[in-house]
C-alpha cells in the first residue's frame, strides 16, 4: 500500500489545454478505424474496387492523349459508383453508435467541449479517408514492375507506363481531399442526428446521390439561366478538370466554407439533442 499512498501524495500533473484533449479524442477515434475490423474492411474493399477502375489503364494505352492514369480512373462510372458510398460507410457509426451504446454520456460528462468531440471525430474520419488514397501511389511502381517483367520474360518493351508526374497526381489528390472534407462533415452531421447507424447511413447516402445528380443537371437539361450554379457545385466536372491538372480555387472556397458550415451544424445538433435526451 505504501506505493499507493505515495502516488496519492504526489500532486497530479495536468494539461488542460484545448489541443491536448483534442489529440486524446482524435487518437481514440482513429483507433476505432484501425484497431477493429471495421476500418480494414472498408480499406480492403476500396482497394479492390479501385482495382476495377484500373482497367482505365488500358484506355491510357490505347488513346495516349496525354492525360495521366488518374484522369481515366476518376472519370469513370465505376469510380463514382462506389465513391459516393464511401462517406456513409466511414462516418455513420461515429455519433450514432456512441449514442446507442451510451458511451456518449461518458464523453459529454468528461471535461471536454462539444467542439473538441466533433473535431476529434471529424479529423479522425478525414484522416482515414485520406489514407484510403495513399496506396494509389503504388500504381506507377507496380506498372513499372510489370513492364520490367514483360521485357525480361518476352523481350517486348511495353509502352504506356504509369508515371510519377506531379501534374498527373496533384490535381486528383487536391479535389479528392477537398470534396472529401465536405462529404465527411455531411456524414458526421447525419450520424449526429440519430442513434441508428442505418438511418445515418441512409441519410448520408441520399445526400451523396442527390449531390451527384445535381452536378449532372446540366447534362440533362442543357444550359439555362441557373446553369452556372450547377456547374459550380458539380463534383464530376471538378474532378474532371482537376484530374487533368487544372487547379482551380473556386472548389477550394466552396468546399472549405461548406465544411465549416456543416461542422457548425453538427455542433448545434449535438447540443440540441442533449436538451431532449
Amino acid at each position, binding site marked *: 500500500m505504501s506505493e499507493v499512498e505515495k502516488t496519492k501524495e504526489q500532486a497530479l500533473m495536468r494539461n488542460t489545454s484545448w489541443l491536448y484533449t483534442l489529440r486524446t479524442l482524435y487518437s481514440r477515434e482513429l483507433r476505432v478505424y484501425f484497431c477493429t475490423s471495421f476500418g480494414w474492411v472498408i480499406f480492403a474493399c476500396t482497394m479492390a474496387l479501385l482495382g476495377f477502375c484500373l482497367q482505365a489503364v488500358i484506355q491510357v494505352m490505347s488513346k495516349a492523349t496525354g492525360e495521366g492514369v488518374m484522369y481515366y480512373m476518376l472519370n469513370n462510372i465505376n469510380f463514382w459508383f462506389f465513391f459516393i458510398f464511401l462517406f456513409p460507410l466511414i462516418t455513420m457509426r461515429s455519433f450514432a453508435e456512441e449514442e446507442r451504446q451510451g458511451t456518449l454520456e*461518458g*464523453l459529454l460528462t468528461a*471535461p471536454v467541449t462539444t467542439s473538441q468531440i466533433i473535431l476529434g471525430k471529424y479529423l479522425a474520419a478525414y484522416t482515414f479517408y485520406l489514407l484510403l488514397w495513399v496506396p494509389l501511389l503504388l500504381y506507377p511502381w507496380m506498372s513499372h514492375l510489370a513492364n520490367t517483367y514483360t521485357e525480361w520474360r518476352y523481350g517486348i518493351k511495353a509502352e504506356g507506363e504509369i508515371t510519377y508526374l506531379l501534374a498527373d497526381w496533384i490535381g486528383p489528390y487536391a479535389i479528392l481531399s477537398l470534396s472529401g472534407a465536405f462529404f465527411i462533415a455531411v456524414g458526421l452531421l447525419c450520424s449526429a442526428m440519430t442513434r441508428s447507424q442505418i438511418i445515418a447511413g441512409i441519410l448520408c447516402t441520399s445526400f451523396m446521390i442527390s449531390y451527384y445528380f445535381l452536378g449532372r443537371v446540366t447534362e440533362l437539361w442543357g444550359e439555362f439561366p441557373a446553369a452556372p450554379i450547377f456547374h459550380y457545385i458539380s463534383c464530376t466536372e471538378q474532378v474532371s478538370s482537376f484530374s487533368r491538372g487544372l487547379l482551380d480555387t473556386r472548389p477550394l472556397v466552396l468546399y472549405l466554407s461548406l465544411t465549416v458550415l456543416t461542422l457548425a451544424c453538427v455542433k448545434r445538433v449535438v447540443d440540441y439533442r442533449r436538451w431532449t435526451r
Partner: protein
Amino acid sequence: MSMVSTEHLYKEYGRIMAVKDVSFEVELGEIVGFLGPNGAGKTTTMKMLTGYMPPTAGTARIAGHDISEEPLEARRHTGYMPENVPLYDDMRVYEYLYYRAKLKGLIGKSVRSQVGYVMDRCGLESKRKSMINTLSKGYRQRVGLADALLGEPELLILDEPTNGLDPNQIRQIRELVRSLAEEHTVILSTHILSEVEMICNKVIIIDNGEIKAADTPENLTKGLRAAGRVSVEYKGELETVMKELHAIPSVKKIIYEGTLPDGWQRLVVRAEPGTDTREKAAAIIQHHGYPLRHVYRHIPSLEDVFVEMTRHD
C-alpha cells in the same frame, strides 16, 4: 462551503416535468443516498449535475462552479458512473482507463500512476489486459467506478452502482464505496434500501420529480408511524385482552392479525412513535395467566420511510 448545492432545478421532457423544484445541499465528505421509485427523477437529476443534460430552469454548483457557466471546471471536480456503465467494448481495460485519464487532462507519469492506483483500488489488476466486452457485469461495474475515480475528483456521482450484481458483488462494491467515502463526497442512487442504511449519512427521497425528504436515516425513521408498533403472540381469550391493551395511554389502535396455524393469536399494537409498550402489554397478558411467546417492538427501517413517502394509494 458545500460540495454540491442545487437551486430550484427543473427538467421538462416535452410536457412531462421530470424534475420539479429540486434544491438540496451536500456537504463535503457526506455520503448521500438518492432514493425513489423508478422514474422518480433520480437519474435525471444526476445527469443534470454531471452536465450531460442542461436543466430547463434553475442551476447547481459543484465545488463552487456553476454547471452551466463553468461546465468544464464543474466536471473536473466530478467523477461520474452512469447507470448500466457504458464502456467502449473494443478496448482493453488498461487502454480504456489510460484514455479516460488523458481525457480528464492528466499527462505523463500522472496517467500511469493514476491508472495503477484506481486499478489497485477497484481490484482490476487481474483484468488489466482483458477486452472490455469479455468482462462480467461485476467487473464492468468496477471499470466504471475506476473511471469515475480517475483524476481524484472531490465528488463522486454513482447511478445505481450495484444494479444487476449478485449479493457477493454487491457487498464488494458496497465496501469499495464505503472506503471511497473517506476521501470523496459521494452521491449514489440505489433501490437497495439496506445498502443506504449501511453506508449513507444522508438520504434524499425523491418522488414524481419532487424531494419528499432530505435528512439523516436516523431522523427520518424517528418520527415514523411504524415506529411505536409492537406485535404480540399469546394463547388465550381475545376480547378482554384487547380492551385492556387499548386502555394503555399511548396506544392508538389494536389489530387482530388472526390465529396462527399452531393456535397462537397474534396482535399488533399501534402506539405513538417513540413509545415502548412492550412491558405493559406483556404484563397485561401475564396477569391473565396466558402463555406468551413473542413480544416485539418494530424497528423502523428506511423501507418504512420509503413506502410511507412514495405510496400513491
